[in-house]
């Protein structure tokens, strides 16, 4: 039987004293970050975000994902029961490796963003072979 997984959306924070211009809730999306040999893959759950409303910015080594959600207009209906809130998504990461900014790839499928950040040539890990010297 499937184990019960509890879910709740966490609201994203704002810098101290700052307010958002749009009076809407902003949530922190759940992400997976996988480091591979030549790239870093960021997978983020952004349900309700259209690819047109997604902003991905990389400034120095700060990666910001912002997804805007257009709320469905259900004027004829009223919310009878609610377990989750609808709002935008925002998350910022600092990347440790130098990323090749020109080759970043982003794809959206079924509300999931997949961001492939290739490592810059200089940042790729080089394996240093240790050779054993013949003992005298």
């Amino acid at each position, binding site marked *: 039987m*499937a*184990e*019960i*997984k*509890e*879910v*709740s*959306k966490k609201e994203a924070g704002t810098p101290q004293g700052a307010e958002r211009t749009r009076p809407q809730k902003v949530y922190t999306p*759940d*992400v*997976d*970050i*996988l*480091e*591979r*040999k030549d790239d*870093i893959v960021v*997978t983020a*759950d*952004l*349900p*309700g*975000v*259209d690819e047109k409303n997604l902003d991905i910015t990389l400034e120095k080594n700060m990666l910001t994902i912002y997804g805007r959600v257009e709320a*469905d207009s*259900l004027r*004829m*209906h*009223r*919310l*009878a*029961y*609610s*377990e*989750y809130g*609808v709002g935008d998504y925002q998350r910022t990461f600092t990347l440790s490796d130098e990323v090749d900014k020109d080759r970043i790839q982003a794809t*959206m*499928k*079924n*509300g*999931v963003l997949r961001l492939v950040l290739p490592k810059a040539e200089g940042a790729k890990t080089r394996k240093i072979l240790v050779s054993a010297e013949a003992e005298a």
Partner: protein
Amino acid sequence: MLWTELDRMGSFIDPWRSLERLNRAAAGLVPAAAPEFPAVNVWADGDSAMVTAELPGIDPKAVDISLTGKSVTLRASRQPDDAKDGESYHRRERWYGQFSRTIDLPYVIDAAKVDARFSRGVLHLTLPRAEEEKPKKIAIKTE
């Protein structure tokens, strides 16, 4: 005065109120519990309900929706991408596994008119009330 009375009467027969009460009562029994995956919202108007659920990364064809009388069950699963050799996860927050979620409505659902749409990882399920279940208006004849 008359209107407030009517309003009170109206809310008394409103089945959604009882659903809300039920859910509140249930919430009281399990304090501070987060909802099960997936979290659902239920929107209502007089004759139908709209259930929305956030199912990012789930293939809409793999979502199993079954109806029995007053309840609807959603079933699906999401497979993890396991790290291969030489790969490592920095973070792993996304949800994986199987889920099964049943939502009870306060009326019998008209199975033939159910509409399910899936866009951008959000499921929209329209569940109309069965025709024979709808309240009937009775005209009063005067002699």
